[in-house]
């Protein structure tokens, strides 16, 4: 059984590596179609043909594209992410801090939203059809149909500008106390939670409702089990697969999808780095960011799949 699991994980890992390779190549090709290159972008309005040609030659941009790709890939394999075109700094250095920030924000959001979302989803499944259930459903849809930037901006206006309870900006550093950290993360975490919770609430509700409709849930009730026990001991373990999948998909949004929150709260995370990289056609940086998103995504999805498999004795 453990051997089986190991071979399963090994296979997954191999496939993940292959996926990464393909993605890096696809991203590379995609960036090749983008109009303009880093030389033009860096020169901006000063991009006269001679200036562009000169800069291009100086940056070795005239080498064949595929050669540059393999050079990048080679570096990547030896753990060297390369040098950013835009500012000549090692990419590892640029990415490290930003990635740390993003992960912190993601972790804070996950810690906050996942339990709440699951609790809401599961309780509304338990009280299916009740007023509570309907209000949760209604509230979820209402909340996600409000654009993210609206929630963030309204939050800032109310809590930072009018009430002055929370800061309008969230720098990840310069944090001296736990209370301060809470204040700094409060609004971005709230905003992101609004965005990602809906899917988790709806999916966990659907999965638990499904599991509650089964004869074994009915049987548990006939054994005298209380409603919470039926849900927690019988429905939930069987609904785990779809739930972890929904959670993983929602969490994967927390890295690449938070550009609006990063912008509004001026939070230096990796999503903005990526958009910047695209804007400046900073190829090695785009590639590195894409790899990070891809790795995190695959990690989440694979974890979800493995949990789903582990939670189902038939698949184990």
């Amino acid at each position, binding site marked *: 059984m453990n051997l089986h699991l190991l071979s399963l994980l090994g296979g997954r890992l191999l496939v993940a590596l292959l996926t990464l390779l393909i993605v890096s190549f696809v991203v590379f090709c995609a960036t090749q179609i983008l109009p*303009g290159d880093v030389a033009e972008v860096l020169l901006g309005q000063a991009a006269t043909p001679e*200036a562009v040609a000169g*800069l291009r030659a*100086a940056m070795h941009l005239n080498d064949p594209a595929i050669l540059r790709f393999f050079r990048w890939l080679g570096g990547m394999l030896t753990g060297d992410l390369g040098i950013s075109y835009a500012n000549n700094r090692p990419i590892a250095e640029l990415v490290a*801090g930003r990635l740390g920030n993003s992960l912190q924000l993601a972790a804070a959001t996950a810690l906050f939203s996942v339990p709440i979302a699951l609790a809401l989803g599961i309780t509304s499944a338990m009280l299916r059809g009740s007023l509570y259930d309907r209000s949760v459903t209604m509230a979820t849809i209402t909340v996600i149909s409000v654009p993210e930037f609206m929630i963030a901006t309204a939050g*800032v206006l109310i809590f930072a500008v009018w009430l002055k309870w929370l800061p*309008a900006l969230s720098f990840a550093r310069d944090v001296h106390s736990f209370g301060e950290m809470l204040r700094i993360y409060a609004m971005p975490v709230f905003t992101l939670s609004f965005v990602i919770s809906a899917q988790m609430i709806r999916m966990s509700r659907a999965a638990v409702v499904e599991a509650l409709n089964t004869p074994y849930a009915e049987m548990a009730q006939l054994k005298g089990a209380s409603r919470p026990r039926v849900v927690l001991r019988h429905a939930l373990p069987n609904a785990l697969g779809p739930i972890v999948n929904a959670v993983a998909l929602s969490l994967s949004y927390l890295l690449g999808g938070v550009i609006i929150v990063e912008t509004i709260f001026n939070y230096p995370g990796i999503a903005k780095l990526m958009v910047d990289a695209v804007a400046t056609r900073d190829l090695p940086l785009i590639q590195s960011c894409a790899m990070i998103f891809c790795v995190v995504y695959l990690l989440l999805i694979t974890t979800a799949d493995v949990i789903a498999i582990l939670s189902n004795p038939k698949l184990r």
Partner: protein
Amino acid sequence: ARATSALAATPVKGGNLKAAGWSSSTADTLDPAKASLSTDYVRCCAFYNRLTFLDGDGKLQMELAEKFETKDAKVWTVTLKKGVTFHDGKPLTSADVIYSLKRHLDPAVGSKSAALAKQMTGFTAVDPLTVEITLAAPNGDLPTILSTHHFMIIADGTTNFAKANGTGAFVCENFEPGVRSIAVRNKNYFKSGGANLDSFEFFAITDDTARVNALLSGDIHLAAAINPRSMRLVESQPNVVLSKTTTGNYTNLNMRLDMAPGDKAGFVEGMKYLLNREQIQKSALRGLAEIANDQPVPPMNVYHNKDLKPKAFDPERAKSLFQKAGVLGQSIPIVASDAAGSSVDMAVLVQQAGNAIGMKFDIQRVPSDGYWSNYWLKAPVHFGNINPRPTPDILFSLLYASTAPWNESQYKSEKFDRMLLEARGSLDEAKRKQIYGEMQVMVADEAGTAIPVYISNVDAISNKLKGLLANPLGGMMGYAFAEYVWLEG
């Protein structure tokens, strides 16, 4: 809130200033030659110095230079101030100046001012504090040209710009491109007194609303370039002061004279009459603009031609001109982008005016990315955005001379080129003023560039922040405010 009064108040020492610009990316740099965004300029101004600078009245002042001397406007001798040191302790010498200026000629540096620097053909270090600069052709404006931000002086041989090593009022403590920089006061600054602030943190908040909100909540002391849409909110706040400068920044509609429909006589003129300048000023820019007369020299510039009146909004006249050009009723694409500020709104206004007279304008809004290399100068009808330049010579030679690198409408006039050279080589102020005035009329009437308004820059500042004055080089005191302002209370 009211505009800042330049009351003579005594500066207070100390305090940590936090200020936010409006744009920033990983391409943020501490290399003055590459600086392209306001964010870069602010940082460079804090860490480096120029040989000269323009003061609040647009007058040239010496900074690192003691004096500029020339006989023929071709060979210039620059004497440097004594006792200036870089942050790492190295004294400033002529080698640093020559290195700083010469590198603009190297394409690998990717200098934004390569076009201007090209005229400097010879550099000689006469002695450690004297530099001789030879120009390809006489140019009386060299000291002013060297007051622009790209010509900051860096230490000889510098290639690594992870940290700044300049002579400026602040020492770079931390710099993360696309995130922020932290600067602390330079205790060895060569100007007496030095900066007032203990430290200065600068970053950018790209979202207009968020930038204003950060100021209102007290997170920052200065929010640069606030959007006209936020004016109503900011004006109602008691603890916020607005600092407005109209510098000569403009967003213009370019019609290439070598392409249809710009090559049809009457089209360009018609478009200039179709621009409802008042509406642009009032609606698109919420009054934060001054009406312009289709030429690039702004009113606060000493060479501005006051007699040249802006063209009035006259759809009927435009209609007859379009009829003459044979374009009436055609559908004309206009390329606009957020890259050229307010251009989308302006395009909408043109489109609306066109509808009334049976002209159809098809707005093509394109992404900011790659706008300057892909659409600007290239599309038949498109928008551009030009930052203020200190002299008419720079403006005309960059934008309107037959060989100008950024000849937005492909305007070609031998007479204009001759006049440009004549004014440049002359050291006679009255004559220059007269020639430049005439050239402004030519641009307004003949070139395919319609300049509807000069856009004002409004920085919103906390009422604790004092000492911020207007400057013709741009907002935030020509980006150099950190050195001069102080925090009260």
